[in-house]
């Protein structure tokens, strides 16, 4: 059996983000509402079909009947939609999109998506990203980091592995090298299109450690189906250990041949 199957199933996967339960609650409220509306309406439909079937001795009524209930239902539905909008969706979307904490409290990560991989770029111990340039991008330097630029020496890059500490906000800046991708983490209820030329940002805070999937949700070419990444949510200690291990000790390696134009 797939070990991940305890997180994923038919229906919503587990939810380990701080904002996720609110999304789930909205999804649940909506589905209960949809189900009730449909059920009531379906009962009406069946009743009408049985009661008004054509049979000897039964005739149709010409006179326009006046129904009160449907009007009330209609108004009720409209009011409920207003509640959904102004009490749930609009404020919730606002909270999801606008980072509710000072930037410096959050772990900053950059995602550079490409066909068909997720490159992650950490600012390192100084908390400041080094410069990146498209002209430096190469298989060994997927985000195009200029190691000679200020603040770049301690930067960390990984491919397809996003390491984050649990219980700490993470602020992710998204960019794409080539086509549109969509950065989706089902268990965190995170999804954001990654559009070349237009950087965007999402944030989340995980409540539980473990390894989970990152998916690409937007058709991005032949390998769209295998543009799979992992998010590794660690305890603060584990995370710091990982960080220490990853931090480059020696100064930047000599720039590869393709980069000579960069100095």
């Amino acid at each position, binding site marked *: 059996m797939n070990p991940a199957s305890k997180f994923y199933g038919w229906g919503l996967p587990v939810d380990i983000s701080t904002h996720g339960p609110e999304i789930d609650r909205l999804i649940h409220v909506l589905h209960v509402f949809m189900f009730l509306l449909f059920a009531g309406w379906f009962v009406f439909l069946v009743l009408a079909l049985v009661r008004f079937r054509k049979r000897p001795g039964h005739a*149709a009524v010409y006179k326009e009947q006046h129904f009160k209930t449907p009007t009330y239902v209609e108004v009720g539905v409209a009011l409920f939609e207003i509640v959904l909008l102004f009490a749930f969706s609009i404020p919730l979307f606002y909270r999801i999109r606008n980072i509710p904490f000072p930037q410096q409290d959050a772990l900053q990560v950059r995602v550079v998506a490409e066909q068909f991989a997720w490159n992650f770029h950490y600012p390192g111990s100084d908390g400041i990203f080094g410069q990146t340039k498209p002209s430096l991008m190469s298989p060994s330097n997927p985000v195009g980091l200029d190691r000679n630029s200020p603040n770049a020496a301690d930067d960390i890059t990984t491919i397809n592995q996003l390491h984050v500490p649990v219980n700490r906000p993470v602020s992710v800046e998204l960019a794409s090298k080539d086509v549109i991708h969509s950065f989706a983490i089902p268990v965190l209820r995170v999804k954001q299109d990654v559009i070349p030329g237009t950087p965007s940002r999402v944030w989340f805070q995980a409540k539980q450690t473990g390894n989970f999937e990152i998916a690409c949700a937007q058709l991005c070419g032949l390998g769209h189906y295998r543009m799979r990444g992992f998010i590794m949510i660690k305890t603060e200690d584990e995370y710091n250990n990982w960080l220490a291990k990853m931090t480059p000790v020696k100064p930047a390696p000599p720039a590869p041949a393709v980069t000579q134009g960069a100095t």
Partner: protein
Amino acid sequence: MKEHSSHSHSASLPFWRKYIFSLDHKVIGVQYAVTGLLFLLFGFTLIMLIRWQLAYPGQPLPVIGHLFSEKMMVGGIMLPEFYNQLGAMHGTIMVFLGVVPLAVGGFGNYLVPLQIGAPDMAFPKLNMMSYWVYFMGGLIMLASFFLPEGAAQSGWTSYPPLANLASSGQTFWLLGMVFLITSSLLGSVNFIVTIAQLRADGLSFFRLPFFVWAQFITSFLLLLAFPPLEAAGVLQLMDRLAGTSFFMPSGLVVAGEQLAVSGGGNPVLWQHLFWFLAHPEVYVLILPAMGIVAEILACNTRKPIYGYRSMVYSVVAIGFLSFVVWAHHMFLTGMGTKMSGFFQITTMMISVPSVIILTALALSLWGGSIRFNTPMLFAIAFLPMFGIGGLTGLPLGLAASDVHLHDTYYVIGHFHYVVAPGTIFALFAGVYHWFPKVTGRKMSEVLGKIHFFFSLIFINGVFMPMFLMGLAGVSRRLYDPTQYAHAGSTQPLNVFVSICAWLLALAQIPFVLNFFGSLIFGKKVDRNPWEATTLEWAAPSPPPHGNFDEVPAVYRGPYEYSVPGQARDFWPQHMAKEN
């Protein structure tokens, strides 16, 4: 055809003028309908292939697998290239070459002039041209499968930069779309003028059958929403062929190489232009279906439609509102929360008139004397199926829940409930209902009911599980969902869906048999076999060139069924006196 001296010039026309390059709206309507049906079948076949790959990823397709070229399947195993082509072309063909031509070109062309008591469309030559331009567009789309690198493979939405970088199939797709859009523009102008100008004496706007209203609004949608996409299509064509960068930002690095384009463009611009068409387009797909259902419900409940006027106002409101909801497809592009707030509000607003129409149709059953013939069964089933489609639009229209559901199978389930057991069922209902008018013969009820019940069961088996998959977060357009743990966990559902899809295909066999069999063996009928009230039933079956034996005038509304004091339970619009 019978002799009708006043319009008999058609009798002297050679075969190719009468049936191929015909100017008669009925022949053109049938051409559209038959071509549309064939394309629906073709688009359906494409998805049947996809369903094999989704149910049994990486396993060779039995029996027919080896018939495909090396570029499509290797040893019967589908390649991702081919999968993406099938997905993109299924969507494109179903929407632009199947449903719209059948619903608007076919039903609209055939029925609108008849229902308004006109001898033909206002511009017969334009009408013929619109069909042949559509036909050309279809040929271009089909031809693209034979290109060295195959057909378009960037989804029916063709988002750049992916589409800009794609192989030559995309160029054909764009050219094909330019033809299809041009065809729709020609057609819609014609409908608007015809409905505005050629109504019979006495046929005021509030006496129009609801179907005509639906076609009228649909035509405005086509006329106003398509030009932006046509412009966008030309811009993308320029990006591909002339080196412009309308949709290409600077600094792209593709497969490790810096891309040599001038840059400075914006891929999101395409999405705005595309969805500015494509949202109204979904109403183009659904309004004619609602019109068909209204006609059939009124006729088979033997009573007037409930709330005719509020339905008309609703359809007009939908027409306006459908132009201000497009960006609900783009909540996750990173547009600001104010923008998304606006589009969430308009999206909830447009649900109100849709609910009114659906409620009015359902309430129309109350107090009727319901005949359960095949067209009526399909029309009744439309109501709950479209209901499911509409309701599941709510979580997608609210940005907060869309965060999880966007671009998943939930979306596929949602819009298929609208277009497949929704629109397609209504179109089937229409085929069964008007077949006697077009051919003078009725289709078989037994085969029709077999077709209906099996289709209803299996189509729900196809689309219902997709909601669960969507909730699980399974992305759409995945060549091999088992690559992801969260998608692989729903794999049994994929197998179930595929089996239902293949059974659904088998369930269409009775329809095909019925359709062709009834052309020859169907029971012959008179002009008004369903005892209906609207004008098309006043013409002979099939109607001759010029439609009516005498110019009809209209004395009452479209649905005067079971009027008290009348000898019979229907009172046709064109009868001056009691019947």
